[in-house]
């Protein structure tokens, strides 16, 4: 029982803002806000001390007292004058508890409505980031707990195993049966998977598959670790016999020959690698499984009626900096698209991720055409670029969570998955048409209010 620490079955440890978020999660968002014309964008702890900030950061690294007073009165977001700047403040909640503040200020010259929109979009984005991370932590935590538990149960089994040789046999039989059961279960899971594929989004599927894989892999992983230990013991006894045998006239030579014939030296060298590789492999599967996303939120901020064209304009202006940086050209062909009912922050997020994708689709002479129109009871939104295009073999995978074509570590692969989730939530649909070297067109259909 080497390195077997006490197992705590507790679940859902308390998390603060800094446990949830890291600089790489927040800074790109804050940078984008400042890029869009804000003076300062900051995420602070609940006392107003800056955790992350971009723009004109004050020396004391805390929120202006006026903003803090507003936060204390629990009327965040209420704009008051602050020496020639406008500002917005929102409280960040995790599990109902206020854990931090989100602050944006802008020069008075910046349009008030624009600032409000910017804040709304960015805050929705921040909440999505937090939500996804929390989901992942929860899922991972539960998996780890369940795996650890299977491990402990296995150790218990092994203790019983040692009791008698007879039991040994019985147990190996039940083990075989268990393996069969597992295989049957996996087969069932696979069949179910095939059936669900048509209907469920891949994200939801991933969670259930992850769960199915999780138990057997926990099993395999802990068995491998136990096996590693056993092999140590076997090695020791072989070594013991070998050394003792050398002194014995009777069996020494015979043992030596058998030792060579069975290539024990080679096996001893190789077995360690074999097991290590297997453990590494199992570990990797465990990590992949833990990374599959799972939860969905039911809560959403209040929905309201909006004009999709106006929200598209807001999103484009939030991206103005990126657009300038890449000297991309945006062509708008707006038609009738009023009367959609939803959360503007989320809708802007959905557009934002597609536009970002389009902006990264090519290097020069990039033209992005945004077209809207009403078709029956739906608004249809086209976002087309003239970039590299998406290879046919991955076109139906780009909406999967964690799927990214960028280098590992560069994109989280969550952008388009987030868009997909948001659009599905409003019972809309999203499709992509793409041709290599010519560009891609994303077509979003959203049902309008009747």
């Amino acid at each position, binding site marked *: 029982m080497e390195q077997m620490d006490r197992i705590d079955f507790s679940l859902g440890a308390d998390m603060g803002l800094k446990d949830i978020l890291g600089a790489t999660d927040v800074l790109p968002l804050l940078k984008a806000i400042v890029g869009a014309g804000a003076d300062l964008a900051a995420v602070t702890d609940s006392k107003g001390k800056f955790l992350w900030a971009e723009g004109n950061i004050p020396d004391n690294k805390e929120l202006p007292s006026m903003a803090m007073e507003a936060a204390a009165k629990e009327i965040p977001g209420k704009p008051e004058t602050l020496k020639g700047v406008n500002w917005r403040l929102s409280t960040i909640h995790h599990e109902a508890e206020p854990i931090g503040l989100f602050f944006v200020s802008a020069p008075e010259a910046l349009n008030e409505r624009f600032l409000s929109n910017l804040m709304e979009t960015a805050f929705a984005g921040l909440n999505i980031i937090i939500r996804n991370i929390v989901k992942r932590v929860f899922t991972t935590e539960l998996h780890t707990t369940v795996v650890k*538990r299977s491990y402990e149960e296995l150790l218990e089994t092994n203790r019983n195993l040692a009791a008698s040789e007879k039991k040994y046999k019985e147990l190996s039989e039940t083990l075989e049966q268990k393996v069969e059961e597992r295989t049957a279960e996996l087969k069932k899971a696979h069949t179910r998977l095939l059936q669900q594929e048509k209907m469920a989004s891949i994200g939801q599927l991933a969670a259930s598959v992850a*769960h199915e894989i999780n138990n057997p892999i926990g099993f395999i992983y802990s068995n491998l670790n136990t096996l590693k230990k056993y092999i140590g013991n076997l090695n020791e006894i072989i070594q013991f016999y070998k050394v003792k045998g050398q002194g014995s006239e009777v069996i020494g030579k015979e043992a030596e020959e058998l030792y060579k014939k069975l290539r024990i030296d080679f096996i001893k060298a190789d077995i360690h690698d074999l097991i290590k590789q297997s453990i590494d492999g199992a570990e990797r599967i465990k990590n992949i499984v833990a990374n599959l996303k799972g939860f969905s939120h*039911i809560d959403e901020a209040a929905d309201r009626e909006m004009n999709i064209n106006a929200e598209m304009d807001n999103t484009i202006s939030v991206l103005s900096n990126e657009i300038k940086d890449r000297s991309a050209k945006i062509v708008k062909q707006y038609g009738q698209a009023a009367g959609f009912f939803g959360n503007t922050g989320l809708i802007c997020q959905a557009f934002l991720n597609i536009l970002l994708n389009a902006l990264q689709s090519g290097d020069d002479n990039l033209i992005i055409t945004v077209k809207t129109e009403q078709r029956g009871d739906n608004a249809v939104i086209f976002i087309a670029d003239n970039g590299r295009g998406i290879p046919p073999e991955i076109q139906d995978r780009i909406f999967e969570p964690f799927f990214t074509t960028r280098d590992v570590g560069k994109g989280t692969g969550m952008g388009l998955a987030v868009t997909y989730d948001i659009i599905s939530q409003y019972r809309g649909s999203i499709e992509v048409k793409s041709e290599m070297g010519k560009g891609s067109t994303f077509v979003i259909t959203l049902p309008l209010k009747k």
Partner: protein
Amino acid sequence: MIEYDEIEQRMVLKLVYYGPAMSGKTTNLLQLHDILAVEGRGDLMTLDTKDDRTIFFDLLPFFFTAPSGLKIKVKVYTVPGQVRHDATRKAVLARADGIAFIADSQLSETANNSESFANLEKNLAFVGIDIEKMPLVIQFNKRDLKDIVSEDEIRRVWEPTGIPVFMASALYGQGVLETFRRLVELTYDYIDSRHSLKEKHMLSKEMFVDNLTKVSTELAGQ
């Protein structure tokens, strides 16, 4: 097994909705989420698979501060009811401070109810919780359906145990808040006896219960 950090002035409580598959645990939480005021209540986190069965758990969190400054977080979980998810059930059940057992009133579900209750007893023992001391309420759900166990029969069986029993139709929001309120009351008594919520933190039972069962004004006005 209350998580209490005296220095940080924090307390985390865990309430668990237990019961057989499809008895309406998730529905109870969905309804609570809709009935209760947004203030102090968090998002309901739920895993929606295609066929609505819980695989991991659902979580509805609450947060408020006692007059003493003690921060209290209450996390309400559901377990997956399907038999094969027992490992997950144990993980969710560990360190619980109170349990609502949601039974399915349909006659056809009687065996599943008792099997699940036996499973609860077994798993509580496994995670080291004494069922005798644990705040526990029972809800018989789906009263709106035909072919259900009669209320008389239920009372005859359960009243001798002293465990509070509630009739509910969670799908229509009936009996949901009553069940939850009683669970919260029992949980208060349980914690007060260990951590002097009233004496040390000036948190009365009324305050505690009110904070967790504030009805949304939209509904109250109706």
